[in-house]
Structure formats: structure tokens, C-alpha cells
């Protein structure tokens, strides 16, 4: 009997009687990471990585009942052994390893292979079945090393400062924002939106070494911002606040920026292909490293990616997500906008 099944509430482990990243309220929700499309309000108990706990408490409610695990630690629930391994997606993101009677299943959640300098890097885990995302599961999505992308962002910023323009980077408040802060910190001060500053506090309190940033307040002057780096969440993108800055120019950091059509659609002044998801070679590398006999593909280009795996001799199946499998990539494009509002 398989260890997991895919139900309309989400991934369910019958033997252990718990869900992984459920979409509807359940008794026991194993949570891969703190992004709002993976963790929702209303579950009786949550199990997540130690670093994810303060994040979801801050984002959802202080009243949540949360149990935690460190990477490599495990607990047993109804005979199913549950352990966490780094997924490299964002701070606190974990792959969930389930073991029951010699059967091992790993649910990766979202993941990326490259070490981003702030998240514990991805670690492949041997398993029989593997649930993989495929947000960027097409071979046109291949990332450059992050140092190259950051060099591009840095030179964009310094050009802006010389040309009296204000650099505004649009980034999710959880994950992308901290990655930018960590990698862009230097002589130029970084100003962050409230929602990012709040999360930074939580993350620093949890013991993560995050460079210093300045919270934007009504007292912050336009002149200060013009000489600095401004980071705001996607919800702020078309805001009057940005329009009122001194010659604001916006830059979006997202894997979708790899493709011209997406760049132009987003009506930003600059697009940087910087993603917290695995690119095509990354997905292939991760899947091969698990040695899995069976791969479940969820989120993104599920049809194309699972077909490719099957043709390559790795048994793969598409998994329907809440949004419906078809054209789910568009939901992901939309998430660039909406993730913060959920």
C-alpha cells in the first residue's frame, strides 16, 4: 500500500493519519515551509521546522499549536516515522521524509539546489517515491549562478543611484527579501517595507544571521531612499507610494524573468531571473539523486515534466493541485502578484 495519497484536502498519509501542506483544515498538518500556498489557517496541529514556527505564528496566528523538528530529527506518528531535511527553498523550508515498514517517501515541498547564502542548502534524500514540484519544469528555465545575477542587480542599483533614480526591488517578504538582503548588503543601506521588517525581526530572533536593514517609516526621506536600496513586497508594486518616490525604477526578481514575454508583461523597469525554485537541470539532478522509483509531479509544468521523466525511464505521474493541473504555471505567474495578499 502506498504511503501517501492525493486527496482534495492535499497529500494524505493514511497509515500515519496526517496531511502534508493541506489546503483545507485538518487535524494534523505537516508543513514544508511558511509560504501561504503551503500553510493555511485552521489546522489543529502543525508540524514544521524550528525556523518555520515563529514565521507561521507571525503570519497566521500566535495561537497555532505547533510542534517542531530540526533537520535530521524525527518523530513517529501512528507508526510512521517523519523526519525533515533541508529543501533550500527559503529559511526553514524542509523536505518531509516518511518511513513506514521499509517504504520511504519524500515530499520535497518547494526546493532549489543552489546555495543562496542564507538558507540551509538542499540535501538529496534516498527514497522509493518522491514528490517533486515542477514550477520551472521546462528546459528553457536554466538559472545563472546567483553571483552573476547579483552582479547584475548591483550594477543596476549603482547606475540608478548615479542617475538620481530610486531602486525599488519587488520581492516576497518571506524568502526572496532575505536572500536579497543577505547578498546585497554592503555600503549601500537597505530600506525595507514593514511586512519585510516584521519578518526580519522574527527571523533574527530565531537566531538567523541577517544583515542590518532599515524599516521604512513616514519619517524616511525620499532622498535617503534614492541613495539606498528599497525592497517592498509584490502587493506594493503599482502603489502610489512608489510612484511618489524620486524617479522610481522597479526591478522584479523572479525565475519568470528568464523569458521576455513574462518580463514585458510585468511592466517593471528591470527583471532579474532569480528564483527560489529549482531550474530544469536542478530538478533532474534532485530526482536522480533520490534514486526514487516513482516520482509524483506537482505545481507547474506537471504534464511536460512527468512525460519527460517517463520517457527517460523514471516512472512519473502528474498530481492535481487545488488550482487544477492544467496551466498551473499561470497561477504561479499570478503568485508573483498575489502571494502576499493571501
Amino acid at each position: 500500500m502506498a504511503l501517501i495519497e492525493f486527496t482534495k484536502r492535499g497529500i494524505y498519509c493514511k497509515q500515519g493519519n496526517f496531511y502534508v501542506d493541506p489546503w483545507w483544515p485538518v487535524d494534523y498538518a505537516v508543513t514544508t515551509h511558511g509560504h501561504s500556498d503551503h500553510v493555511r489557517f485552521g489546522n489543529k496541529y502543525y508540524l514544521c521546522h524550528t525556523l518555520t514556527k515563529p514565521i507561521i505564528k507571525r503570519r497566521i496566528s500566535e495561537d497555532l499549536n505547533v510542534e517542531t523538528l530540526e533537520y535530521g530529527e524525527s518523530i513517529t506518528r501512528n507508526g510512521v516515522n517523519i523526519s525533515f531535511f533541508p529543501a533550500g527553498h527559503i529559511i526553514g523550508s524542509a523536505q518531509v521524509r516518511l518511513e513506514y515498514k521499509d517504504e520511504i517517501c519524500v515530499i520535497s515541498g518547494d526546493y532549489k539546489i543552489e546555495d543562496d547564502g542564507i538558507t540551509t542548502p538542499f540535501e538529496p534524500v534516498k527514497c522509493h517515491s518522491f514528490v517533486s514540484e515542477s514550477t520551472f519544469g521546462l528546459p528553457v528555465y536554466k538559472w545563472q549562478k546567483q553571483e552573476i545575477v547579483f552582479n547584475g542587480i548591483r550594477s543596476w542599483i549603482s547606475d540608478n543611484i548615479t542617475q538620481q533614480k530610486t531602486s525599488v526591488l519587488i520581492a516576497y517578504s518571506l524568502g526572496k527579501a532575505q536572500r536579497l538582503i543577505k547578498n546585497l548588503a554592503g555600503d549601500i543601506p537597505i530600506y525595507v517595507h514593514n511586512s519585510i521588517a516584521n519578518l526580519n525581526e522574527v527571523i533574527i530572533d530565531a537566531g538567523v544571521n541577517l544583515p542590518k536593514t532599515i524599516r521604512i517609516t513616514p519619517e524616511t526621506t525620499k532622498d535617503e531612499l534614492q541613495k539606498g536600496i528599497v525592497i517592498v513586497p509584490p502587493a506594493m508594486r503599482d502603489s502610489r507610494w512608489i510612484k511618489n518616490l524620486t524617479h522610481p525604477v522597479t526591478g522584479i526578481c523572479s525565475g519568470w524573468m528568464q523569458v521576455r514575454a513574462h518580463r514585458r508583461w510585468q511592466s517593471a523597469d528591470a527583471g532579474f531571473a532569480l528564483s527560489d525554485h529549482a531550474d530544469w537541470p536542478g530538478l533532474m539532478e534532485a530526482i536522480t539523486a533520490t534514486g526514487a522509483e516513482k516520482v509524483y509531479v506537482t505545481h507547474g509544468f506537471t504534464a511536460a515534466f512527468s512525460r519527460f521523466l517517463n520517457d527517460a525511464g523514471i516512472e512519473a505521474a502528474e498530481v492535481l493541485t487545488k488550482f487544477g493541473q492544467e496551466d498551473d504555471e499561470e497561477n504561479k505567474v499570478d503568485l508573483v502578484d498575489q502571494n502576499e495578499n493571501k
Partner: protein
Amino acid sequence: MKRFAQLIQQLELSNKTNDKISALVNYFNYADDKDKVWVIALFTGKKPKRPIKSALLKYWAIAITETPEWLFAESYANVGDLSETIALLLPPAENTSNLQLHTWIEELHDLEGKDDETKKEFILNAWNKLETQERFIFNKLISGNFRIGVSNKMLVNALAKQSSLDSAQIMHSIMGKWNPYEITFHELINGIHVNTDNSWPYPFCLAYALEQEPEKLGDISEWQAEWKWDGIRGQIVKRNGELFIWSRGEELVTEQFPELHFMIDVLPDGVVLDGEILAVQDKQVLSFSTLQQRLNRKTINKKQLEEAPIGFFVYDILEYEAKDFRQEPLSIRRKILEQLNGDLDESPVIISPVINCSSWEELADLRQTSRSINSEGIMLKKLTSHYHSGRKRGDWWKWKINPYTVDAVMIYAQKGSGRRANFFTDYTFAVRDGENLVTIAKAYSGLTDKEIKEVNSFVTRNAIEKFGPVRTVKPELVFEIAFEGIAESKRHKAGLALRFPRILRWRKDKKADEINTLEDLRQLLQSTL
């Protein structure tokens, strides 16, 4: 090539005309002269000869990346551009190259007539020394167009700014006949290959929409009323034996309309006419959709010439006997114009008629008949008015008829192309026919980017069936569709077809059971017959 690749990236990212112009000016300030000539050529549609078929590029890319053909197709569907798909699929380049744009073009040119093996070796070698963005440009040089939102007018404005030359003169120069392999940048923008003294047009005089009762304009006898035609506003310039046709967008479109070339023999020298380029048959104006078949074409075939014959309805005369008449009152200009009439007999060039009316009421009644002659309303021009440069309130008014509208529900959606390749942007609409829904129009545009995203998300969540690229969706979203006319049609299931349908607005306040019925449209059709 790096500089050009950077220019393309800047142009693509900016939505602001000023930013695009400054990117172009910056490019023209620093780029190699030979490269500049090619950039002008590429942006104005003068493509270099294509030595290699794009199918071959795709084939080679598939082979060296070992990508299955279906996966290539999936990737292409997501990226929306063949050159870009190939550029992204290829492995990172192992070398770099500082070859300039014109050198690449010349080397590609030299491949002409070589065998496929030689061509393949050249292409693979090139791919291996170009970065992704450069590769994309390189592929475009072989197989595509540079459609990146740079109009001829924008290019000319940038060149004028950079060179301090007159923009109309540059427009004439670059629209003229020249060979990018031979001409220098200096020769090109100074127009040594053309005589720009002959071509320059005047700025168009534009009208505001009339938002008050016409009675408030005073006595009707002070006004000249004309039909407002729905075509392409244009100027015909004849000087020193040369003829030029300019469009409202200040682009030279002489070559597109051969039917008007006879004017070179008919018009005296030193004449500039303002008027409307229209589809005209037997001196009657045809619909705008007929005219559309003839717009923005590089070549015109015989069928198009027969099905959409072009004419020109003259509104005004700006120059006569090489003298600027724009400061003369309209009444005088009209008299001069009417003197020209005799020479134009039997031709598709017609002086746009004046509507004689003794009262505003009479004119208002006549306005209601506009659609029957494919006019979109009435123009009111003060008889004493000068020919102003641009828009000026008070002397000229357009008194348009309102479009027809119908509330319809969206039942099919299809993805757009290019910038909209990943969004459902083309919709099919239906009205109620008893218990059924029957399609009446397909329309895109008219929605904001934000609305498109919203509709897109609805389509993704509510798709019922899939027919290739088309999704059948739950009939729920109601839109107000505007259209210019309605006609019987055997081709459509509804038995009628809407002319020029477009989305006027999204009626979020309406439910699908509140839309119009087919019977409503049939009645409208009867009333227009």
C-alpha cells in the same frame, strides 16, 4: 552585438516613450556607424536576406540539446518566440565574441549559396560564443522581425534628437530607397539619396469631440459640416514632380497605396492635400474592416487590390502653388480645393462633400444616417478657421455617433501571442437564444492588464473543455461589447455578424441571465436594413 543586445533589452523593458527614445539616442551616440545603419534598417523592416530557414535552426538546436521535439514545442508555447526558445535551450556558451552587429550580418550574408553542412558549422560555432540575449538577436537576424514597440516615428524622433536634424527630413530619408550594405550613417540621415525638400508635410489639424449641444456653437451658417470618415488620416504632398503620402502617425506610406499614385500626373506642383485614406468603390466609402486588409502590408497582391480598392477623400488644401495657405480661412481654402475638382473626375480621389443644412435639428437627423454610408458622424468646422497645428479647442469639432452595444457572456477563451503568450486574452462571446447560448463575436483588447490577469485566472479555474488552444469556460463573465454595425451572415450560426466588435467594459455587476438575446440583435438588424 553586445551593445545592440543591450539596446533591445532596454527597449523591451520600458513602457515609456521617453525612456525608449533616450535608450535609442544613447545607442546612436556610441555605436559603430555601420551598426547604426543596420539598426535603422532592422527597425524599419528592411530585413537582411535570410540565408537559412528557421526550421533548420530549430532542427539543429533540437539535435545538439537532445531535446525531444514535443518538449521543444511545449517550451516554445511557453516562451512564445522561436528565436528566444532556441537561445534559452542551448547550453551556456564556451567562448565569447566581440564581433559587431554589421559583421555578423555580413558573415550571414556570405553563407548564401553555401551547403547546409557549412551553414550548420557556422551557426553552431556562433551559438557557442554568444550569450543568451545575443543568441536571441542572432537568431532573430536569421529568422524573425524586430517587433519591439519602436515605431518609425519614435526611431526618427531619436535620430532627430541625436543629430539635431529635422525629423520630417529624417523620416523621408529612412523611408526612401537605400541599401544598408552600402550607405553610410551620415549619408542616410542626411538623406543624400532623396530630396527631402520635396516631401515635408504639415502638422495635422485635429478636432476635439463635441460634448455639448451643437446649438451652443452659434448659428449653423458659420459652420461647415462634413461627414466624418473612418479611415487613415493622410496628407498627399506633390512637389517638383514627386508624390508623397503621409499618414497621421507621420509615416510615409506612399508605397502602400498604388491607386493614389496617378495623382503625380494630375496634381500641379506645390500642392498639399489633407484627407482620409479609405476603401472606396464607385465613389462610395467601404467599411473600415475592408480598408484594414490593406494596412501595414509590405506587399500587396492582386486580390487585395480588387477587394479593397483605395481612395482618398480630400478635406482641405494646405499648400497651393507652393504657397502655405493654412492661415487663410477655411471658406477660401475650400474654394481653391473645389477648383481642383475637375482634374480628379472619374478617379477614387474625391473632395469630401459638404453637408448643406439650414438648422442644427436637420443636421442632427442626418447624423443618425451616418452609418448607412460608413461614416462615423459629422465634423463641424468654423468657416473662418485657420488650419491649426495640432489640437485646438473651438474651431473644429467631431460629432460622432455612439457605437452599438450588447451585453454578452464569455464562453471560449484562447491564449494571445507575443507579450500575451501566456494569458488567455482572446475571448468569444455569446448571447441567449431561448435555452441556448449562441456565439456572436470574438474580441480581444479593451481590458486593462489587471483585468486580463483576473479573467485569465477565471479561465484557468473554470475551463470545461479543451479544444487545442481554446478553452470552453463556464458562462459567467458578462461583458459589454461595442460594435459599429451589424450584417446578415450565413457563415455564423447566429445568422448575423457584428462589425468591429470590441470589449467596452467588463460588467461585473451583471449575471449571465441578464445578457441580451439573439432576438434583440435580430431586431437591431431589421432596423438598420
